[in-house]
């Protein structure tokens, strides 16, 4: 055996995706939640590159290129919102920022 089949790569990335999702669901701090989302996106990107390798064609790598750019744009906006909420509140726990209910 001198290469790794696609299925193993997908299992690895599914596990990584699960770890990221766990961070999202279990942690209440906005910064950790955002970092966990980055983990999930990282898992997606590895899976895309692995699929591109397994199929020997390049679209998957382009997808990653675009999704990296999108992630950068999203992080910028998300962190701006975090900064804004911190200014008006002084806290960044997901539940503390909530005054709307129902």
């Amino acid at each position, binding site marked *: 055996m*001198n290469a790794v089949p*696609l*299925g193993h790569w997908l299992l690895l990335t599914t596990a990584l995706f699960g770890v990221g999702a766990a961070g999202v*669901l279990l942690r209440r701090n906005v910064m950790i939640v955002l970092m966990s989302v980055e983990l999930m996106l990282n898992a997606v990107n*590895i899976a895309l590159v692995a699929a591109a390798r397994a199929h020997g064609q390049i679209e998957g790598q382009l997808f990653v290129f675009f999704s990296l750019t999108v992630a950068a*744009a999203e992080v*910028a906006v998300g962190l701006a919102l975090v900064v804004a909420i911190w200014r008006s509140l002084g806290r960044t726990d997901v539940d503390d920022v909530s005054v709307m209910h129902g």
Partner: protein
Amino acid sequence: MSAEVLLFYVVGALLLLSAGAMIRSNDPVHAALWMVGNFLLTAVLYLVLQAPFIAAVQVIVYAGAIMVLFLFVVMLLGAQPMTRSEPIAGHRATAVFGLVALVALLSVAVARAPAAGRMPPPLTGDFGSPEAIGQALFTDWVLPFEWVSLMLLVALIGAVMIARFGSQSEDPEETSG
């Protein structure tokens, strides 16, 4: 066992460990450092997968730019240690159960998928090189390429607008800076 297989298992295990350490960190700076480690390990996996260009972009954009952005905000907000409270009783157990179920289901689905056994084919020399990516980007994919440039512009303006210091009332000239 070839170097590729060895790298996959070793780096893959480290990847999961660093991710786990990240989500367990109580200090946001520690979490950010674990995340850098995770991103750099990911770049190694991209090299294993014959994607040198993506590996370079990963290091520059993720481990570089995005990381700095995170650390910058962490420092701006002050690195206060975080609580581990559970707002709704049983919420954590439910979430863990749901997650384990989801990941298990997805893993079985992936393992049984017809494409799972697919072995990587031999490649031509320039697969994943900057030339190959650039050629595809500026021919078939020029629309999405232009489009993400607009997205970056929108994100830039939006982030500056939302996070800018000072009052947002009528005259931006008086309050800039």
